[in-house]
């Protein structure tokens, strides 16, 4: 078993696992928000718009960490920081004023509905980006 072979790469070693987890979230959040927006967009527009934003953030984080695109590290940083702010703000709003959102989002209750992973992931992403910084 070897350590990451290319220093500075975000997609070797533990980074591969992280990319896989982000990919699962990107896929499921995108599918879920597509279904919500297609079938009942007017029921909880704020929640479903937020779900779509979260889906985009997970896609961006996946691509950034997988080193796709011209500036993947910048993309990954932007995505995980946005994700951290998003899960904290949306999580707080969903707890303090649940009526605002009208329905569940990935980030409601700090991601409790997804095993708290939405809360853990941005910290893992930030730690990994900092760890692999050249």
């Amino acid at each position, binding site marked *: *078993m*070897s*350590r*990451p*072979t290319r220093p500075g790469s975000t997609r*070797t*070693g*533990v*980074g*591969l*696992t*992280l990319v*896989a*987890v982000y990919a*699962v979230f990107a*896929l499921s959040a995108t*599918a879920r928000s597509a*279904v919500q927006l297609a*079938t009942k967009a007017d029921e909880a527009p704020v929640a479903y718009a937020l779900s779509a934003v979260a889906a985009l953030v997970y896609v961006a984080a996946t691509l950034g960490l997988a080193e796709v695109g011209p500036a993947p590290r910048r993309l990954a940083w932007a995505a995980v920081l946005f994700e951290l702010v998003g899960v904290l703000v949306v999580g707080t709003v969903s707890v303090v004023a649940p009526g605002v959102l009208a329905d569940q989002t990935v980030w409601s209750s700090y991601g409790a509905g997804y095993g708290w992973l939405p809360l853990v992931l941005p910290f893992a992403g930030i730690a990994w980006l900092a760890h692999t910084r050249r």
Partner: protein
Amino acid sequence: MTGPLPLIAIVASLALTVVVLAYVVLGRVPDWGLLALAGAAEAAALVVTVVACVQLARGGHGLDGAQGATLVGYLLTGLLLLPIGFAWSLAERSRGATAVLAVASLTLAFMVLRATQIWAAG
């Protein structure tokens, strides 16, 4: 989508997850034994998917079109996870790469669970 079949599929993929995590802890890379176990979990999920499609086609289940499509979507996506996860876990000889298969198998268990929940709601 009731009875022991979905439960067997869920237990099989959870068992695979545990074994993969043991591989990660021991520093072992995926081998033929793990491939066989993944094949068994995949086969169980495939049986559940076929049974679900047959039962949906027969009717009398109380699910509307969107629910049926979502249920089949979960199961078909779930079937892709282990092949992709296994191939991905061979990308490099590292614990992180092996752990990708654990992510895939845990997600498969969750997908089958969601499918049974949708079925129960119908």
